[in-house]
């Protein structure tokens, strides 16, 4: 398996097969006298901004500090990764994860308040 080829930018599925995000970043731990080790996968705007340019990331952080927001980075420890094949399957429940706050907030406060937000067509399609 090659990290950059097979893991970075892949679709992440949680244990309920919910599309959780893409592998936006991979954190590698450098250890003294031992080979480096993959620590965790990272998702979210901060790491994406960092990939585009460090300046963009600084802007984003400054804007967050000014507006008083703290954002928990969406990190998944490598030990939770179950399978890497076309998708990266991880053993977490995204809907309960702190890093999933935007989706959860929108679902509870915006989309969920509009009538009909619960109407699903999953069964008729399969």
């Amino acid at each position: 398996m090659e990290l950059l080829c097979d893991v970075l930018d892949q679709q992440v599925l949680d244990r309920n097969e919910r599309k959780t995000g893409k592998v936006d970043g991979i954190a590698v731990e450098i250890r003294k006298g031992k080979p480096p080790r993959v620590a965790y996968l990272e998702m979210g705007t901060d790491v994406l901004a960092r990939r585009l340019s460090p300046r963009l990331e600084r802007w984003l952080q400054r804007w967050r500090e000014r507006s008083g927001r703290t954002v928990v980075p969406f990190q998944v420890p490598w030990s939770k990764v179950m399978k890497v094949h076309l998708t990266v399957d991880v053993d977490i429940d995204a809907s309960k994860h702190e890093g999933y706050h935007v989706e959860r907030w929108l679902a509870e406060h915006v989309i969920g308040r509009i009538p009909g937000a619960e109407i699903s067509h999953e069964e008729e399609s399969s």
Partner: protein
Amino acid sequence: MKPKDLLKITLGILTSIGGFLDVGAIATSAEAGAVFGPRLLWTLAFSTLCIIFLVEMAGRLAAVSKHTLADALRERFGFRFFVIPFACELFVDLLVLAAELGGVCLALQFVTGIAFRWWAFPVALLVWLFIWVGSFPIVERTTALLGLVTIVFIVAAVKMKPDWHAVGAGFIPSLPPKDAAHYWYLTLSIIGAVVSPYLIYFYSSGAVEDKWTKKDLAVNRGVAALGMGFGSIVAMGVMIAAATTLLPAGVALDRYEQAPLMLTASLGITGLYLFAASLGIACLGASVEVALSVAYLTAQTFGWNWGENLAPKRNARFATVYTVFILLAACITFTGIDPLKLTLFTMALTVVILPLLLLPMIVVMNDKKFLGDHRNGWISNTMGVIIVLVALILSVAAIPLQIIGG
């Protein structure tokens, strides 16, 4: 081929006619017919051939790899690259959606006499409701069936007894008789209208929504070729109808109010209602597809949960994207900007960003990791190279042509 496959193909063909025929295809074909007669039919034919190949590739990618085009492009080229075509696509799609909504609003203006801008928000609400409440099959089938009304353009074209020799000659590329800049600007706009990236993204997401597998590859080929082909014939009907009515009357279609003349000449007052119905329905279907396409593209770029069959609450970010996007586009339509001019401009702009999508797409279509033995063969690759080259040349020529010819 099994009967079930035939049903799938028929349905797909109908949907594709709906997807093919939008405000862009109608406006560019009508304007071309009004100014240059059937001379630009070759552009329609060529761009139809291009979109057939591209849509087939997008469907094959989805059926074989279970990846949508956006998924595959981000995976293959990384976020740093993909963010550029993604951002360009969002911007162009916003203008396209504003133009499509404008098309529906114009149709309502023709029927009610109330100025089109006042229809912007009611129409936006209708489009949104359709997506909010509907499922993917509902969206597919409704646009498909209602889209059949556009066949009236073919009827009108034949009824006006066009000069079939001139029509035949139109399929051979020719140099402009006059006003070269306008001729090439229209060529550009037609290609942009037919080879629409939103359609390619939408089709690949639709194939995943419909859970296509390798068994559906034959269906995919049939749908791509016949669906786009029939859509193109209707667009040709628009061009010929415009050529036989607007051109002799000296109407250069510089004002959108003149457009219904295309059908009223042969069908009388019924023609006005049929024109309004065709324009309204084609643009309504296209609005739904553009809005969904944007939500698909954004969700797939960032890996969010997506699917038209899921309850909106289960994919809140996906639902937020199309909700906000429809609202923004309605604001543009509400400004009262001329829908016809906006359409021609947007279609030419589409060509500028086309190479950004097509070049990486051809690379992915040759990637063993995604497609294994179903990679592009030499025919698809030759066609792919031709499309990319034409798109590159046109995108360079587009900006000066916008200024001189538009």
